[in-house]
Structure formats: structure tokens, C-alpha cells
């Protein structure tokens, strides 16, 4: 089997591994939380980022400032929150693209490698934009009966609690960090592998 084909099949497997690893991680540190709280974001669910029960404990703290429940499976089942559409769409997209990567790999045409990569880049950008949009809604959709209503000292408007999209932000007593997690790196590697497959396959044809 040609090297390029192997690379492309690997690209598909790397992408498929997103079912097992989180793509993003938000970490919250506060004086009362020297051992931070953490939120892992997967393509299909949320999970505890640092310790047992983190998702619920973040919810518990957020209720003081009137934030909605996180769209965890438990909250959906309890009826606390609507299911998140992305958790249905993302797994389908990832499955389809992984299978396509395998098919493309077996066919072995350079052009197809490139097309797969371009689609992935478009989907990736769309995914990131969607994530940003969700963070904005989550941070601004506040209960009018919130226990603590804090206004922004600069704008005079109700304070928003949107977590950072990338990097660091201070939100009330919390230092919030938001960074790609292992899944994001696996996805990037998958795209890099498909590019290498395209690059090598062209050489292979020349030879």
C-alpha cells in the first residue's frame, strides 16, 4: 500500500477518535477552588474536567448569577435544559467525514485528498464559530430573577458571563481558562495528515 493511502486512512482514524477525547476544556480557578473546576467539551457531550461532579458543581455556582443549566445529559433528562443540537449534529459530521477519509484513502486519488481537506477546513471553521456563538448565548442568557444581579461598571448593562473562547478571562471571583483539548489536536493532526497524503501522493504519481 502506498504511503499516502496509509496517511489518509490514519487521518480518518484520528478524526474518529474524537468520540473518545474532549475537543475543548474550560478551567475555573477561584480562592475557594484552589483545585480547579473543569468542563470538558466533547463532540457529543460534556464531562467533568478536573474532578468528579464538576459539571453539576459549575451549574450550582452559576445559579447564583442566573445562568442557565449546562446542556449535560443529566440536565436534559431532568428537563432542566433543552438538548443541544450540536451534540446530535457533530457526531454525525465526524462519523461521515471519518468514513469518507477511509474511502478516499482506499481510492487513493490526490484530488480527493485535497477536497476532503478543504471540506474539513470549512467544517472546522464553522464548528469554531458555532462554539463561539454558544459561549455568547450561554454567558448572556440570564434569569431575570437571578440571586446576584451585577452590572458592568463601564457600560452600566447587566454583566455578561461569557467564558473566553480562547485563553484567559477573569469572571467575578473566577479565573477562567479556555483552551483546545486533546481532541482538537487530534483533529488538527488529521487535517495535517490529509495534507501530507495529498502532497506525497502527487510525488508518488510523478515517480
Amino acid at each position: 500500500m502506498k504511503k499516502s493511502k496509509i496517511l489518509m486512512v490514519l487521518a480518518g482514524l484520528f478524526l474518529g477518535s474524537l468520540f473518545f477525547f474532549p475537543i475543548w476544556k474550560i478551567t475555573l480557578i477561584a480562592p475557594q477552588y484552589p483545585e480547579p473546576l473543569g468542563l470538558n467539551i466533547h463532540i457529543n457531550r460534556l464531562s467533568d474536567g478536573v474532578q468528579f461532579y464538576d459539571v453539576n458543581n459549575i451549574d450550582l455556582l452559576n445559579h447564583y448569577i442566573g445562568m442557565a443549566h449546562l446542556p449535560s445529559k443529566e440536565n436534559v433528562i431532568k428537563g432542566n435544559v433543552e438538548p443541544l443540537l450540536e451534540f446530535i449534529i457533530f457526531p454525525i459530521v465526524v462519523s461521515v467525514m471519518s468514513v469518507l477519509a477511509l474511502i478516499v484513502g482506499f481510492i487513493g486519488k490526490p484530488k480527493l485528498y485535497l477536497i476532503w481537506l478543504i471540506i474539513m477546513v470549512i467544517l472546522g471553521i464553522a464548528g469554531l464559530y458555532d462554539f463561539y456563538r454558544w459561549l455568547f448565548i450561554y454567558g448572556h442568557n440570564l434569569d431575570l430573577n437571578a440571586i446576584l444581579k451585577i452590572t458592568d461598571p463601564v457600560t452600566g448593562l447587566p454583566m455578561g458571563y461569557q467564558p473566553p473562547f480562547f485563553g484567559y478571562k477573569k469572571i467575578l471571583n473566577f479565573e477562567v481558562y479556555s483552551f483546545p483539548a486533546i481532541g482538537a489536536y487530534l483533529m488538527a493532526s488529521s487535517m495535517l495528515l490529509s495534507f501530507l497524503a495529498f502532497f506525497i501522493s502527487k510525488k508518488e504519481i510523478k515517480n
Partner: protein
Amino acid sequence: MKTIVKLAFAFILASFFGCAPTGSDKDKGTSKGALSGNAAEKVYVAPGEYDSHYAFISGGFSGQLSVYGLPSGRLFRVIPVFSQDPEKGYGYNEETKPMLNTSHGFIPWGDAHHPDISQTNGSLDGRWVFINENNTPRIARISLETFETEEIIEIPNSAGNHSSAYVTENTEYVVAGTRFAVPFPQKDMPISEMKGNFKGALSFLKVDKESGDMNISFQISMPGFDYDKCHPGRDKSHDWFFFTTYNTEEANSLLEVNASQNDKDFIAAINWKKIEEYVANGGGTKQPTNYAHNKWDNDKHTATSVMVKEVLVVDPKDVPGAFYFLPTAKSPHGCDVDPTGEYIIGSGKLAAAMTVHSFSKMIKAIEAKAFDGDAYGIPILKFEAVNYGVLEQPGLGPLHTEFDSRGNAYTTFFISSEVVKWNVKDLKVIDRHPVYYSVGHLMIPGGNSRTPDDKYLIAMNKITKDRYLPTGPEVCQSAQLFDISGDKLELLLDFPTIGEPHYAAGIAADKISSKSKKIYKLEENKHPYAVKSEAETKVVRNGNEVHVYMSMIRSHFSPDNIEGVKVGDKVFFHITNLEQDYDVPHGFAMIGANTSEMLIMPGRTATSIWEPKQVGIWPMYCTDFCSALHQEMQGYVRVSAKGSNTPLTYTLDGDIPGQ
């Protein structure tokens, strides 16, 4: 004449303080010593930093076990063991009340003496700490994951459970010896007929390797002496257990005189392996008895108390070769075995001498039958045949000895108020240091194991008088921390303790801290009245009993409005803390309840009973400052007159919870 008196006086002093230090040495430990020796630096644990050792210091007559950090001397927690603790609800809530049950009924108090940490291969393993109750004989096992009392077992046929609760090198057994000789089994008879008719029960409690559950494996009916202290053999003497005895005179009154007549009492050497074998082959007699065995269930968050009706008794006569007496200077108190297992040391409380016996000499003496008669059929070994040597008059009133790993022993002297460091092999005093005042036990972390930790020693003092700011007639007792890493004892710190710091067990912090439990998982909670969510909370009436299935979470109770309770009802608040976050306990208190508050850890369920006596609207609230809205965590119960027809309702924010 005056000169002669002076000389005589000097002679007396010198004989008592043969190795007395010079005056300048005595000054160390005062303000000057602390500065010159950088003691402050050695005990300073910066804010947010951890101590290097845990010290589990018994509360003596407080009945509890306190947890301190060393070297800072900071108190972290008081673990309720034998006494009720209204702060935590221990012994007041329905779940923990059975822990304090005995054959005499519920007892709210105990006298906690000797904590000992479980061992594996002769070293501390940090799984459990065992402690004895002296007054109503009991042994408790405390988990070092939850820092809670998990088991209390009553010891029958025993009285003044003092030579307890020491563990063998693999925690095969916890041993509990009687201080008082008593009729065995108990019966009505004249006290004056004690001699020859009373017995001393030595109990061996088998410890389950996995769960730690204790069971009385066998009880030895020893002659009716007083069994004061004991320790297991180590390494080569692993199979043996040693007990000091006093009142071998078998006096039943004015013991201070009548039990102090014999120049020598005994150390009893007992081969528990031989007895274990004898028992395994069907030996021993089952005798009827009655004692309580109380166990805590970590899934049901509830204790149960079972009365046990039988105990296996072993008569020393039936196991030849397992029992010997070693003559030891006058009313020995401490019975300590060095880390190698070779030296068995009796602190001759009234002789001002340390008797050091040799284990290998003892074995040879047994083989050579070097006996000096017997006591009630138990051979008495010849003193010269077992004795390694005697350290004469190192101080006054020797009580207890612990060891470092360099062959040194550290002994407390109650009357002369000092700790003396001496070399066991050389029988020579190396250093001495005064303590303030009247020291009982001392503790070196691991100092009663094969592997002592040579850094710290704490001396536990009964009298403090001028050492702290006065607090009326009753002043604190105290512990004093020494650095023993050098040749000289260096006093670093004084710190007050709870109750009487009778004895302590110490261990390197990293052997325990990482295993310390943070929360109880809600999904593992099998308490019959637990609720897993607010939707499950409810109130159920059953005759005049009202069962409230309540939950608590930041920052409300569910339900928090209850109506339809009547005067004469018995209201059970079964409350589950739904939190699953570390260090978020909630408390519960109900106005007029004839009990304590409850402090409920995350994931736990506990029950408090309230019997309302007056009509009205009665509040309840959270007692532990749990959150920014702690002060809002409150509720009301409406109490109507007896026979009124107020319907039973329960709500949260106007609705039935979960609807």
C-alpha cells in the same frame, strides 16, 4: 551539724539526679533556647503549607481523638469516638447512637487512652487507628480515609481496659488487657475474697485484613493481677506479646500501699502464635457472656449494635510453653519493645529503674527451664537468666519509652518531669530535658514500630500551671514537641491539647493525606431514608410519627414549608446533603429539639428527631456557613394542636418538590 545536713541533702539530690545537667542546660526550651536554636523556624509552617506529620492525640477523659499537625502543633479535627459530640451530632442523631451502646445500655462518655495505628510488616500503614476506652472496656477502630469511628467493640470480663489497644506487626490482632482483676465471669461475692478468685482477662481481637472488622478471637484468663501496659514483640519476637503487671500482691484495698509491697512484679510474656494454633485446633472453652459490637456501615451511613452472647476463653494451664513471667522491678508501668524486638523494657514506676530484658536470653532460659517457681501454674523465669541489664535511677517515676532508629530509647519520668534519652545497649544516659510538667506518655512517629521516624518526639504533660495564660482553676494539659534528630533533645514548641493528652500515634502525612476522602458519592448512598434529588423529597405520616425525607443543597432545604404536624407527633428529619463538592457540609437545627444539631457531609444522610410541644410556626435553619446564601437557608414547620385537622403538606417555593 549544718554542714552534715547540707551534705546529706546534696547526696540525696545527686543520687536521684545522677546525671543531672548543669543549670545552663536546663535553660534550653525557655525563651533564650528557642531563639538561639532557631526553634521558631523549625515549627513554622507557612500559611497554606502542610505539616509533615499527623499526630493522633487521644483526648483522655474527653473520650475523643484529636488530630494535630506536626511540627506546627495545629489542631485540625476532633474525631468523636467514645463521647457524644453535639458539634457533629455524633451520639445524638439516630444513625450514630448505636455506636455508644454497651451491655450497660447507652453510655454518652468514655475515657480514651491509647491510639495505635495499623501496621504491615512492622511498619505503620496508615489504614486505621485503634483506641481503647478505659472505663467501660471498649476498643474502637477509626478509618484514616474518613477520619470517623467505624467500629466499637465492648470487651467482656474486663475492667479498666488499660493495657490496650496495641496492634501486632501485621495488624493480626488488636490486644486489650484488663487493669482491674475481676470475677471472670462476673458474679456476686465478697470483695475480700479476691485473692485467687479474681482473674485478669487479656483479649485478642482479630482484625479483618480488608475491612478492618474486629472480632474477639479469644480471651485469656490470667491470674488476678493488674495488667497495666503491653506491647507486641517485633521482628524476631513477632510471635510474642508482653504485658506489665502490678498488684501481684492481689490487694483489694488501699492499693497505693498494699500493691507496692513486692520488690518485683512481672512482665508476662505470651506467645500468641501458640495460642492461635491451639484455638485453631478447637482449643478453649466457649463461655456465655454479653457484650455490644457496634459497626458503622459506610453505604447505609448508619450504625448497628449487636449483642454477642459468647466468648472463647483460654486457660493458660492448657497451653504449655505459651506463658511465662519475667520478674521486673517494682510495679512496672510501661512495657516497651525496641525496634529490633530484642529488648523488652519495663519502666519500674516505683523503683526508679529501667529493667531491660533480652528476648534471646528469654528463649534460652525457657529452653534451659531456668525457672524460679511459678505463679498460678505459670513459670517464673529466673531474673538473671532473662535480664540484659538495669538502668539504675535515670530519674524518678519512669513511665513510658519509645525509640529512634539509632538504638536510643526515650523515657518519660513523671515525678522528676523530664524526658531522658539513653542508649539501650550501653545502658547509658545520653541526654535529658525537663518537661512542663509531669509527663505521662511520649510519642515518636513510628516509635513503637520496627521503623521509627527520627525527627520528632512529643511529650504529653498532665500539669501546665504557669505555662499558659491562666483560665481559672481548670487549665489545659499540653504537648511539647522536641527535635530528636541530633544528639541532644531540642525543645521546639508547647501546644495545648483537648482533655488529657493520654497517648498519641504519629505518622508521616503522605501515608494518609492522599487517601483522605472528600465526599460521599450520592449514587452509593444506601440509607433507607436517603433522597437522591429534590423530586424525591416528601413527608409521610405513620400514626404519630412524621417522616420528613428532606434534602439540602446550596442554599435551601426541600421541602422548606411543612404543615400538618401536631403537638405530640414524633418528627423524624431524614436529611440528605445533595452536594457532591468537597468541603460543602450543611448543618441542621430545629428550634426546641431536645438534641444537638447535625452536620451532614456531602452525599450523606442523617436523622434528627423533634417532638414539638407547642403550637406555632417553628423555624429550622442551616448551621454551617455553607454559601453566600447560607443565611437564607431556612424553613418553617407549622405545628397545630393535637387532634386538629390541618392537612399534611410540604412545599418548596409553593409547589410540591419536583412538580
